[in-house]
């Protein structure tokens, strides 16, 4: 049981199996393409018979996120997953979690929009994910996996960040990473936390008021605006600490690059192939891959942009992260964008063409 396991599986399956192994307490979800394998895998594996993990198919995404609110507010490691239209429905609950400082995890296996859109992959929920998404001044920590391995690895990382900061964390994946099969090393099994451990680590949790403390109350409500401002300032201070501490990114072949592609998730994988092809044609390109989309690696991108001929932002959307890259680069280097829309995944040679255009 304690062994790590090397296997071939889909990103969605990796999320589910890593969660069971990381000692996650509960999953609450509603089927939607292209992420249904998360709940299907859990239903098949029956973790309630082994680790005791609870799996509930909810009546809607609205209910799913509120079940996570309840479970996580009571100190448990709980998560949900969905795809873009379902994540839109969850924004109310995510905002309430941010306000009440509840540490849940949400997985978005994005598909094309707007509206019911398509079932093919997309990265067009970047704005929604990185700007909060619901009402009020808040941020969720956003991690962007670029491989099935990272789908597995980011589960535990997400819970650690969520509980460290008492804040919702989103894994912003897409239909490519969710559906493709790759070699993955699953983590060894770790037991779920005991009641004593939860009491110690989560003194704020609503698990029954013991005589030695005041009641714990999970709420985002405060009618006195002067008190609400203090709460908001506390949240902003927390977000500042997260920005200072939790920025994650990766670079590849940037040292001698004239052009740096900035891309996250599956677009970064496509960019790697395009960079190989570009170098074969004599264009020296490299990759900067933000792993945390919020907090965004602003300073690191500003630094990597110095002395380059151009920055090309490749996204499977109409141009969303490019705004953050432009803010980071702040005019020091030309910034271009290439994206495909509506669920079309760009071909690497299209990206090479976009690089060529920057050269001219």
């Amino acid at each position, binding site marked *: 049981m304690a062994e790590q396991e090397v296997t071939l599986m889909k990103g969605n399956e990796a999320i589910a199996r890593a969660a069971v192994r990381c000692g996650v307490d509960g999953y609450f979800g509603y089927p939607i393409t292209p992420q249904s394998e998360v709940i299907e895998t859990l239903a098949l594996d029956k973790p309630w018979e082994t680790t005791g993990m609870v799996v509930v198919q909810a009546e809607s995404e609205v209910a799913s996120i509120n079940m996570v609110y309840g479970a996580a507010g*009571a100190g448990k490691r709980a998560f949900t997953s969905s795809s873009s239209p379902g994540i839109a429905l969850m924004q109310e609950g995510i905002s309430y979690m941010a306000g009440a400082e509840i540490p849940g995890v949400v997985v978005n296996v994005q598909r094309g929009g707007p509206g019911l859109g398509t079932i093919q992959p997309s990265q067009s929920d970047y704005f929604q994910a990185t700007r909060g998404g619901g009402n009020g001044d808040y941020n969720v920590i956003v991690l962007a996996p670029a491989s099935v391995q990272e789908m597995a690895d980011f589960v535990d990382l997400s819970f650690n960040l969520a509980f460290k900061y008492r804040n919702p964390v989103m894994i912003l994946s897409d239909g490519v990473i969710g559906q493709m099969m790759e070699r993955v090393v699953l983590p060894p099994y770790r037991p779920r936390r005991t009641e004593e451990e939860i009491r110690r680590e989560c003194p704020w949790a609503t698990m029954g008021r013991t005589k030695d403390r005041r009641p714990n109350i999970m709420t985002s409500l405060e009618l006195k605006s002067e008190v609400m401002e203090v709460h908001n300032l506390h949240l902003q201070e927390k977000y500042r600490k997260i920005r200072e501490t939790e920025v994650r990114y990766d670079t590849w072949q940037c040292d001698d690059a004239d052009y740096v592609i900035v891309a996250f998730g599956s677009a970064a994988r496509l960019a790697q192939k395009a960079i190989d092809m570009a170098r074969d044609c004599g264009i020296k390109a490299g990759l900067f891959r933000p792993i945390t989309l919020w907090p965004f690696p602003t300073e690191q991108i500003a630094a990597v942009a110095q002395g380059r001929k151009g920055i090309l932002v490749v996204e499977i959307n109409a141009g969303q992260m490019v705004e953050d890259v432009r803010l980071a680069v702040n005019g020091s280097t030309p910034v271009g964008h290439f994206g495909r829309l509506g669920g079309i995944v760009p071909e690497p040679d299209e990206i090479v063409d976009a690089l060529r255009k920057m050269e001219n």
Partner: protein
Amino acid sequence: MNAEFNGIISPENLVYKKPELMNEVPMHYCPGCSHGVVHKLIGEVIEEMEMEEKTVGVSPVGCAVFAYRYLDIDWQEAAHGRAPAVATGIKRLWPDRLVFTYQGDGDLACIGTAETIHALNRGENIVIIFINNAIYGMTGGQMAPTTLLGQKTATCPYGRDAELHGYPIKITEIAAQLEGTCYVTRQSVESVASIRSAKRAIRKAFEASMAGKGSSLVEIVSTCSSGWKLSPVKANEWMKNNMFPFYPKGDLKDKTSE
């Protein structure tokens, strides 16, 4: 304290006291409102069951949004209508805890209808306390899903008209039909007898949830003197004359002894 009462208030003369779980804070409820009585009953039942340290309440959006200020237990404040989903998350992961929601008619029977019906239908071992006063109290007296035909509110100022507004919903009757519910009852708190009956109902529901028998719904037909624009006494009369005929009191389903 007036000196003449000093000889009267002594332990041997004590016949009534408020539950320890009731916090020493002024309630924001209007005079004549049923909420305060129901809060007290919940506090009494939790104490009698000795579940003070194992209870988690879920408060709604509506007049009872601040229920968490009045009972000295752990609480979660849910988004409008989502309390049964929040309670599901808590109870599924802490099955030995007593988990209840406290919701009004707009929260439970309108915006949260899906969460209510599906939590009950899954047979979650939770209790839903449902305050039905046929009006939106907190937002200032607008039409509720349970507003009676002909009843005037801020959004049906000429009286609820079925053609314009649809019919009042009997969500408790719907709940009684669901396989997941073990106890569904309709109570009120306008008299000593009905307060005692409501308390017995809450106790039965709480015990059934701890015995893992499924979901319970305890509806309390309630007054809203401010929303109805009646004095507390007249509000009680109006409730008896108008609400009880449409929302008849009594158990709709009781499988707790099975």
